[in-house]
């Protein structure tokens, strides 16, 4: 594993990563789990105490999206909008235009689709400071199947001018993202998960919009990931390490604006890139990375994500297996991209399936 396209003198150095990728992120001392929606709900109550401008809108899902804590603590700043997401977004824009900071909350499937024209016209175009929260994003959303599983929200939100798109990787990051979103000053989409996931970050971790987060340094292949897929990607790096493949894991919680310098640097160090996301490979995080590398540093790459398919109901393990999002699938893609590089061929998706 030595040939590296576009490599620099420092390629492959371990333990001293710096520059555009930053240092290694602090990891927790003790293993624990929490869902990002739970952390979000708790952080929102704290934020509500600190910032009187914060108001919350709910599309009749408060006890799922976990904004019910805010509703109990600040009933005068909580607005139930009922099952009517289009109106909810317009109301949020009106509130924001008067200087309040609305969090408009629903499931990702509805936040990204049902009200997309409203998000486009009165939030993104106007640059108003509305925080749109898409909970229950990704493949594992409590077995609801195709209508509620949202695998396209990053693609849609990313396409809108002025929109900032955040996909936290764990509860610690989600919590901090709530506070950063409240300071942001413009339209922002926050992607949250229903289910508990491992806590990735320890004391001293600081989330900032746009910052890349280096979770593992390595010189053989770069695994670029975001949101809910990041813990699975770290597990994939462990699988690869057991085979002697040294993977760099770069978590990019800010899908837009994407930190292009970090993407290019990760590709430069390794010459082989795998993108991996709990989202469709069409138009989302992997596409964003491919757009950057295609123009700035063409690099062998493979994309892990759901293919051009609809989701279905089923248990989590079976869904992750069928839709090819497990650590093993990420590791398979890493081996495939390394084979591509060694043989000088372009990648073929079917090899990774």
């Amino acid at each position, binding site marked *: 594993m030595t040939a590296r396209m576009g490599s620099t003198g420092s390629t492959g150095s371990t333990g001293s990563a710096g520059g555009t990728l930053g240092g290694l992120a602090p990891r927790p001392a003790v293993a624990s789990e929490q869902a990002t929606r739970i952390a979000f709900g708790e952080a929102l109550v704290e934020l509500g105490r600190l910032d009187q401008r914060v*108001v919350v809108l709910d599309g009749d899902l408060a006890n799922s999206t976990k904004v019910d804590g805010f509703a109990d603590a600040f009933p*005068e*700043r909580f*607005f139930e*909008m*009922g099952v*009517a997401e*289009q*109106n*909810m*977004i*317009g*109301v*949020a*824009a*009106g*509130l*924001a*235009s*008067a*200087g*309040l900071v*609305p969090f408009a909350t629903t499931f990702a499937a509805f936040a990204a689709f049902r009200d997309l*024209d*409203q998000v*486009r*016209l*009165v939030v993104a*175009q*106007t*640059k108003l400071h509305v925080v749109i929260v898409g909970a229950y994003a990704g493949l594992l959303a409590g077995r609801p199947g195709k209508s509620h599983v949202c695998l396209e929200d990053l693609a849609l939100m990313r396409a809108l001018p002025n929109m900032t798109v955040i996909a936290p990787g764990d509860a610690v990051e989600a919590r901090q993202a709530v506070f950063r979103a409240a300071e942001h000053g413009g339209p922002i989409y926050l992607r949250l998960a229903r289910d508990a996931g491992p806590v990735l970050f320890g004391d001293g971790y600081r989330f900032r919009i746009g910052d890349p987060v280096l979770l593992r340094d390595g010189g053989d292949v770069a695994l670029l990931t975001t949101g809910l897929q990041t813990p699975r990607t770290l597990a994939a790096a462990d699988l690869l390490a057991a085979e002697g493949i040294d993977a760099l894991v770069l978590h990019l919680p800010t899908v837009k604006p994407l930190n292009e310098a970090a993407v290019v640097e990760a590709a430069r160090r390794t010459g082989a890139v795998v993108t991996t996301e709990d989202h469709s490979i069409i138009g989302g995080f992997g596409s964003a990375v491919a757009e950057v590398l295609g123009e700035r540093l063409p690099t062998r790459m493979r994309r892990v994500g759901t293919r051009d398919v609809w989701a279905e109901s089923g248990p989590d393990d079976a869904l992750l297996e069928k839709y090819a999002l497990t650590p093993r699938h990420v590791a398979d893609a890493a081996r495939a991209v390394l084979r591509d590089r060694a043989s000088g061929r372009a990648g073929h998706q079917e090899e990774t399936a």
Partner: protein
Amino acid sequence: MNSSPGNRRTGLSADETAQLVELAGRVRRHVLRCVHAVGSGHVGGPLSVADILVVLYFRELRLDPARPRWEDRDRLVFSKGHAAAALYATLAERGYFPVNELTTFDEIGSRLQAHPDMTALPALDMSTGSLGQGLSVGVGMALAARTLGADWRTYVVLGDGESQEGQVWEASFVAARYGLDNLCAILDWNGLQQYGWRRAGRPVTERMNPIENPVARWESIGWRAIELDGHDPRALAAGLDEARATAGRPTILVARTVKGKGVSFMEGDYRWHAGQVTNDDLRRALAELGG
């Protein structure tokens, strides 16, 4: 006549009424010149809504053209954004920008975009254009005023065609639930839309009304609904006075208007929703409008 900061008035004198009628005529002439200059554009809707806008901006709204983003101003959301030419003409006459800026309407780089853009023109409280969205924004503004303990009011100008959008009714329901008596909608009920439904067995120009029985519909949701003549400044002013005096629920003024109002060959003809205003059209129209 003024709507200076802090001034809440009732009624309308004969002189004020005459002045508003004259202003509405000026707005209509600006609209036609704007659309003629561009070559084509929306005509019928701007002409039907002109009196409503003039009464709002010259008599009703608490505003200060020198401070378009003054935080205690009344808000106006122009939901039927395709009629922007009438809004811009009214804003120019009200002193928000020079009247000669109207010549930039619809041109590249202009602050006067074909559909209102609040990021371009500070006088606008919201961007509109995709229909059916304005009332939701107005609900948000009214909730904001209540949350902030502010006494400014929110006005939303709706079209009857856009009343076919479900979002309007989502917003109406929530506004009633929250008893938003600081919110007033004005429906420009001109009875036509871009194409709509033809009446079976009747000439093609006879179309079905975009929304029938609006008063009953809005009342059934919990709004106060007042039907009035949308071309009569005194009727509009009286309706706005009643809206301000109504506690516990939002009010909608169902303003009966004529699409293409003021130009005989445009009035009541859906084909003048949008179109090309030729040199001859302009000359004849301006003659009828006293300009």
